[in-house]
């Protein structure tokens, strides 16, 4: 269980971690302190391990910087919930072991208590007493996610072929 931290539509990777912090990209824990600071200035104070970042449409548009997914994970975000997601970010998030769940987030408010039932494919908003289904993650990405990301996946299998075909 974790609480919802809300942002709006079209949050770019420049919003998640601006280019002016490029000098911190080889110091990820320090970089993570600046996650979302231009668009959600109190994010670093409010976030606790296990929380969910809840966004509107087209989350993560813009650059390919994998650091954007990493800083959210390092900040403690358990999963991103959004109505839709830009695809480079979606892939990067899975590659670093951060699930992105596509669901209609309109009903979720800041501070709502959320729980994910992974097997049932449901996000439960305990504050509102509602359940929201989330879209299926493609099989190849699910395998990567299950190993904790792309690097651990390759460490285990040494290639991209999916186990069992």
């Amino acid at each position, binding site marked *: 269980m974790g609480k919802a931290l809300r942002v709006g539509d079209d949050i770019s990777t420049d919003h998640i971690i601006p*280019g002016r912090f*490029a000098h911190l*990209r*080889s110091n990820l824990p320090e970089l993570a302190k600046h996650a979302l600071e231009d668009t959600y200035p109190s994010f670093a104070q409010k976030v606790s391990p296990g929380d969910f970042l809840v966004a509107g449409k*087209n989350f993560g548009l813009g650059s390919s910087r994998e650091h954007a997914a990493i800083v959210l994970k390092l900040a403690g975000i358990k999963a991103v919930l959004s109505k839709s997601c830009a695809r480079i970010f979606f892939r990067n998030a899975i590659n670093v072991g951060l699930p992105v769940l596509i669901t209609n987030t309109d009903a979720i408010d800041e501070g709502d208590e959320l729980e994910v039932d992974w097997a049932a494919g449901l996000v439960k908003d305990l504050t509102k007493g509602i359940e929201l289904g989330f879209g299926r993650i493609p099989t*190849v990405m699910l395998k990567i996610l299950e190993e904790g990301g792309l*690097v651990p996946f390759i460490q285990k299998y040494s290639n991209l072929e999916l186990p069992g075909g």
Partner: protein
Amino acid sequence: MGMTLAEKILSARAKAPCRAGDIVIMPVDLVFAQDTTGPLTVRQFEALGLGKLASPSRTVLFLDHAAPAPSKELANDHRLLREFARRTGAILSEVGEGICHQRVVEDYASPGEVIVGADSHTVTAGGLGAFATGMGSSDIAVAMALGRTWLRVPEGFLVNLKGTFRKGVLAKDLVLHIISRIGADGATYQSLEFMGQGLKGLSMADRFAVANMAVEAGAKVGLFPSDETTHSYLRARGREKDFHPLSPDADAHYVNSLEVDLSQLEPMVARPHRVDNAVPVEEVKGTPIHQVFIGTCTNGRLEDLEIAARLLAGKKARSRLIVAPASRGIFLEAMKRGYLQALAEAGAMLVAPGCGPCLGVHMGVLGDGENCLSTANRNFQGRMGNPHAFIYLASPATAAATAIKGEITDPREFL
């Protein structure tokens, strides 16, 4: 049923039919990273524990985003990449050589290739018919180690071009027009493919500018056919052997399409803080502009400097004016032709070939409340180093005219 350009390129490289929606493992013909994504790529590569690069002569590390280095941290990131190149045999493109995407189309990319880069604007090479796409550091590390990547074959989105540009309207106006019509997620994960009789009037510089911004509509790739224009470009660069013609099948299936009459377009300006918030220049004319930036992987090419120099020659810029040629080759040619002389005399600050102030690291960070008009591809809040500044995007002609008057100006006033 016929194939889109993306399906054709991927099928040829996979040596098996690839259809939209298929998940495929593809050989990679070129893999690259730059100085803000490269250090993480190197660390992920080391973590894989696979040792060698699959193809050192087709692996390139570009020092361009923070070049020359503005801080000790970024200078040390450069050292890390230089050391990695030395150890693995990868090619290193040093500070001052230029922006990765420009260097890629100058010397490395060919029609029909599959190219992956740790930078979203890798799509630029789609201008010459390469399936080129941006990925994060982990994916690029894996592509470097295995020489392969996985991907989902994208659906096609056809943009049918007809007519020719009127005076003062450039390729940047076309792509801003398209994005304003379909939105920043209008082509999410699709192959945006540009066809039609209007292509004849589009130079390679035009095609690179348009393909570059395909990702601003969410596209996986932005593809142009490989035709006589592509042939002439490669021949002029001494790479004629890299040419082969490419076009989609006449009966290819596209999930979406758009018609654009080039003769109906106006100079366009994208307003803060969204790329798809673009309007004809008329609607924002007179907005005060403190800084104009001409350069980037979108519009730092010779043709862009030429039109800017033509407008600014003999005049004095009222806005601060920063010009960054996209590569050393462009810098030298622009110098030989007198463009840099004209720009400098008009008050331009000429900075090192590279990304310049586009991503907010250095060389022109904005003050609170300041407006910048830039020829770059992104105007997100905070993009140029200050969340309290405002970025407008436009063509190099609009940028030059704006610099002259110190406010957003229709370039046709000076043409």
